[in-house]
């Protein structure tokens, strides 16, 4: 009997674990280690952050779902990986520390035959002094609890505006190396929509601040779509939406410090500025969650297994190269660790070879470049693909050494992503930007100029996008709870 241990029960880990168990049945063991008792459909946190959904609408308890599926769930956080085992045992293991209230603080060594690291991002608020809800200076929507807190402040702001006060909203990224601009983009337009619905839009100043070189970069070097007989860049489309809704913007900004009601930033041209605000929602930079790795003798091999940003090394080409030399083939296909073949990293947990957007530094040398996003669809596809490969190995179809010839692959340079960014939640007058991009990582050899296939890269704004976003919410909540027909819902 083989044992797969999956670290993390987010989009990628939950997909990997549930499909692995579905394919393997009772003949093999699947163990999930994750610190939260609940699963969260993160995209809908945006609607929690404006009071259109409650935190309960976007979560469910994991334990009963895993019990039904026959998956062993440990509510704990992984602390260290020991891929060579320890003295007296060759069996690799992970050390976990329980967060389950009944066993809180207890540690355990969980042995594995195959490890899938799907620990996602650490929300690295500490990278910017004063950033984040813990410091109390800015808000976040990255977790459902953060989003609920943001909504409390948002409702207060609406009350103030109803009394005639002016309120300034500042939304965007809180550091020069952030990713996930899409989430901030959704939030700013949901705020704008809600303020219009509440009849107080004229009392609000709404401003965007981001590390993108241009509006609409989104950490994927922007994209080009066919629009009215032209090929139009996402820069034009994003600027159009901002101008239409009367939202001002600052781009190429590294937020240096956040204080009560104001922040300082540096721009690519080296100028420094200050923005005041009444309400700020700023996405933090992401890093790996800080797992350590040790060899058999107990020596620290964290640098061998992880990149300096804490994400796990996989089969990518990590040789530093200038932007002009980046290739689609630099991106990993199998997500297998180069040193320990039974270890994989999926979703946000794998280390990308380089950003997707062109790197930039301010004239003072401060890096201001969006980090590469690994959004829900790639995270789900990668989780499922790796689970399929591991199941094939367990079923004897090929060995771990043959994964790179025979395994299933899911490079972000040969994969598309569908993204629906809500710009206002309402069944009859809401809207969303519905986008598909193919491939996620531009391949300028295959598609000179824009790097993407114009047949499969498209976008438009409208109510239809809102309906899709809404349906996706219920579909993925259904799928994640393994309700009837869940395997038929595509990721």
């Amino acid at each position: 009997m083989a044992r797969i241990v999956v670290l993390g029960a987010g989009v990628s880990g939950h997909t990997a674990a549930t499909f692995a168990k579905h394919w393997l049945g009772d003949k093999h063991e699947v163990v999930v280690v994750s610190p939260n008792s609940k699963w969260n459909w993160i995209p809908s946190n945006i609607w929690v952050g404006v009071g259109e959904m409650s935190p309960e609408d976007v979560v469910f308890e994991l334990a009963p779902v895993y019990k039904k599926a026959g998956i062993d769930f440990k509510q704990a956080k992984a602390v260290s990986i020991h891929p060579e085992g320890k003295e007296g045992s060759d069996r690799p293991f992970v050390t976990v520390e329980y967060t389950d209230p009944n066993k809180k603080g207890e540690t355990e060594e969980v042995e594995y035959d195959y490890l899938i690291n799907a620990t996602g991002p650490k929300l690295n608020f500490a990278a910017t002094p004063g950033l984040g809800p813990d410091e109390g200076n800015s808000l976040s929507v990255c977790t459902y609890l953060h989003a609920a807190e943001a909504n409390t402040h948002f409702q207060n702001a609406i009350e103030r505006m109803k009394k005639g006060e002016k309120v300034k909203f500042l939304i965007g990224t809180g550091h020069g190396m952030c990713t996930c601009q899409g989430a901030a983009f959704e939030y700013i337009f949901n705020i704008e929509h809600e303020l219009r619905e509440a009849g107080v839009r004229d009392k609000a100043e709404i401003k965007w601040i981001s590390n993108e070189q241009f509006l609409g970069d989104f950490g994927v070097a922007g994209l080009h779509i066919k629009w009215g007989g032209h090929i139009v860049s996402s820069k034009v489309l994003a600027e159009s939406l901002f101008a239409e809704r009367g939202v001002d913007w600052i781009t190429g900004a590294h937020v240096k410090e956040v204080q009560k009601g104001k922040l300082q930033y540096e721009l690519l041209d080296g100028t420094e500025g200050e923005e005041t605000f009444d309400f700020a929602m700023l996405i933090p930079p992401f890093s790996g969650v800080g797992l350590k790795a040790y060899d058999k003798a107990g020596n620290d091999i964290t640098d061998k297994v992880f990149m300096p940003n804490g994400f796990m090394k996989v089969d990518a080409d990590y040789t530093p190269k200038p932007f002009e030399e980046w290739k689609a083939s630099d991106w990993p296909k199998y997500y297998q660790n180069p040193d320990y073949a039974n270890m994989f990293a999926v979703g946000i947990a794998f280390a990308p070879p380089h950003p997707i957007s062109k790197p930039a530094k301010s004239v003072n040398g401060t890096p201001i470049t969006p980090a590469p996003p690994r959004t829900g669809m790639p995270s789900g596809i990668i989780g499922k693909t790796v689970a399929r490969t591991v199941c094939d190995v367990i079923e004897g179809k090929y060995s771990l050494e043959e994964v790179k010839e025979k395994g299933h692959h899911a490079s972000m340079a040969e994969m598309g992503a569908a993204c629906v960014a809500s710009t206002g939640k309402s069944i009859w007058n809401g809207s969303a930007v519905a986008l598909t991009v193919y491939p996620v990582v531009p391949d300028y050899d295959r598609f000179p100029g824009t790097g993407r296939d114009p047949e499969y890269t498209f976008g438009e704004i409208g109510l239809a996008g809102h309906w899709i976003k809404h349906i996706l919410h219920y579909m993925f909540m259904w799928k994640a709870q393994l309700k009837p027909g869940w395997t038929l819902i595509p990721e």
Partner: protein
Amino acid sequence: MADYKDIQKNITPYDDKTYGTMIPGPFQRFLRTCKIWQFIRFIIINLKMLAVVSKSHH
């Protein structure tokens, strides 16, 4: 339906942001929330997204 006068108020002459972009006119805006047109777009966008999903599994 909003008219052009209302729409162009967010444009400032020689402003490098708003002066250099395109802003949807009243008909475009109407289409964005027109239930019949959006229902058609709903079907088309779903089909396009499914095509991208199917190209992404190897």
